[in-house]
């Protein structure tokens, strides 16, 4: 079974996000970069499929050279090969432009299963998986919190508002992962894994290598742009509820929530 993971590098979730002086971008100079946590779950899910069915796990990512480190981390976890689509034209591309590049990358790999995070913790666009599936003409199962395969189909559970759906798709199929660290428990790279990862193949491609150009994937081709950024309104400093004991504080909190905030 050939499994492809679409992996994005994102700032660490502990990062403090700051806006550039012109308000048009996020400052990236002192950010720590990690594998998007949901994509890390995808790496784990892919490795489990490989352990059961054999085959290969290929990491497909995009972005500048700093992304190589994240791909190597995934290779150290146990993935076999990596592809980085590093093309300046992709900078400023919208979700559909990125999805076109990724779909073209996947097409070259004879994949049975593509897995990726349901969203990335940076811009929360949550579009890449369903878009790639549409471009490939594949079925996709979204927001999976479990993933099983018998080699011809995949089944996944998907939480919905007030319940859970169990879904099945014939291969080839794309699955986007939801859940959390507690659900997927992604493995750490072992020391031998890290040593081996250094020698694993990692191809760097341009759009032209994938039969694409900047009329499909670029800032000019983008149909939607994030034109400005702003911080959320600062919450006014609240107050500490005073009282002689817990019971008095409980009374005062209930009063405040009922009479001032009017929320209970």
């Amino acid at each position, binding site marked *: 079974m050939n499994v492809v993971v679409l992996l994005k590098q994102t700032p660490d979730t502990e990062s403090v996000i700051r806006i550039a002086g012109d308000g048009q971008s996020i400052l990236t100079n002192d950010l720590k970069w990690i594998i998007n946590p949901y994509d890390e779950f995808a790496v784990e899910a892919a490795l489990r499929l490989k352990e059961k069915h054999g085959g290969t796990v290929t990491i497909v990512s995009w972005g500048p050279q700093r992304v190589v480190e994240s791909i190597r981390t995934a290779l150290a976890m146990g993935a076999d090969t990596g592809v980085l689509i590093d093309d300046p034209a992709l900078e400023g591309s919208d979700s559909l432009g990125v999805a076109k590049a990724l779909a073209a990358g996947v097409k070259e790999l004879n994949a049975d299963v593509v897995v990726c995070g349901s969203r990335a913790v940076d811009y929360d666009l949550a579009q890449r998986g*369903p878009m790639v599936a549409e471009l490939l003409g594949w079925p996709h199962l979204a927001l999976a919190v479990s993933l099983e395969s018998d080699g011809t189909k995949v089944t996944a559970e998907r939480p919905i508002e007030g319940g859970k759906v169990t879904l099945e798709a014939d291969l080839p199929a794309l699955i986007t992962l939801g859940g959390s660290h507690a659900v997927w428990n992604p493995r750490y790279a072992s020391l031998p894994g890290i040593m081996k990862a250094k020698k694993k193949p990692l191809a760097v491609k341009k759009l032209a290598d994938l039969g694409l150009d900047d009329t499909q994937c670029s800032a000019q081709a983008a149909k939607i742009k994030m034109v400005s950024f702003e*911080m959320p309104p600062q919450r006014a400093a*609240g107050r500490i509820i005073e009282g002689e004991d817990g019971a008095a504080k409980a009374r005062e909190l209930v009063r405040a929530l009922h009479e001032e905030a009017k929320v209970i």
Partner: protein
Amino acid sequence: MSKCVCVVTEFRGGNFRRVSYEVASEGKRIADALGASLCAVAIGSGVSGSAADLGRYGVKKVYVADDPALESYVAETYVPVVADIVKQCDPAVVILSASVDGKDLGARLAARLDAALAMDCTQVVCDGGRLKARRPVFAGKCFAWCEWAEGALPIISCRPNVMDCMLPSEGDQAEVEKVEAVIPAAKSRVLGLDLDTSGKVELTEAEIIISGGRGMKGPENYAMLEELAQVLGAAVGASRAAVDAGWRPHSDQVGQTGKVVNPNLYIAAGISGAIQHLAGMGSSKFIAAVNKDSEAPIFTKADYGVVEDLFNFLPLFTEEVRKLKATCS
């Protein structure tokens, strides 16, 4: 004649979901600003009977795709049907909910129509006939304003619980047009649906959330939060620490790698307030925090802070809420 504004509704268990009325209301506001009329897509099994009622929310015309094969949401079947309707009504903008299914449908629909989706928006403005949408990024640590290129079809998904629902104008009916849905042979399907019948309130749609963190000390102590939740009609959430410890299911996790919530009231119990957690609940209208550590970062975000041992405080608080409810009802 101006193009219409098209809203995509959600039908489940014989009813339109509340988010459908939110997007219809937002659609009406946008339609009025653009001087356009409002149309809607009603898709599902057995949806015909209720479709005309969307008129109460300002919808002039509803395109109805009613087919047993559309009983449950499957991207492969829903997306082509919605795409065909959108092509037929040729709208200026498509609006849907950023619900679990809506997020998925919106993304695949955008690829199919070669359109551009602004996901999970919290505000839409119409500036001289051009749309701009505001959406949280980095799980709400920051907001981005999105604009569309000339000639692009904007698709906007609206975050649940944010857009004001208009008062329905009883008796107003929408014109209904039945669509012969061409449903493709799908390579994916629903095997089972497991609905929670316990009456538990869904986190992302809850008006009040009570979350417990590391300070809860163990899974057994969440009974205290469940009890309070029941009195308040609230949902129970958890911090990543509590979920990682296996105390609570992942579906309860609030934060950057969990759910982003925006209730009227968020009560944080024994949660210190790590930046990833604050990102997930910082847009709550009111925040109350209980923590015995007066230096906990959560207090910098809380409207009301209580420095107390939560095991002492919560039962007292629950009792006071009970008294209030007894006098109000």
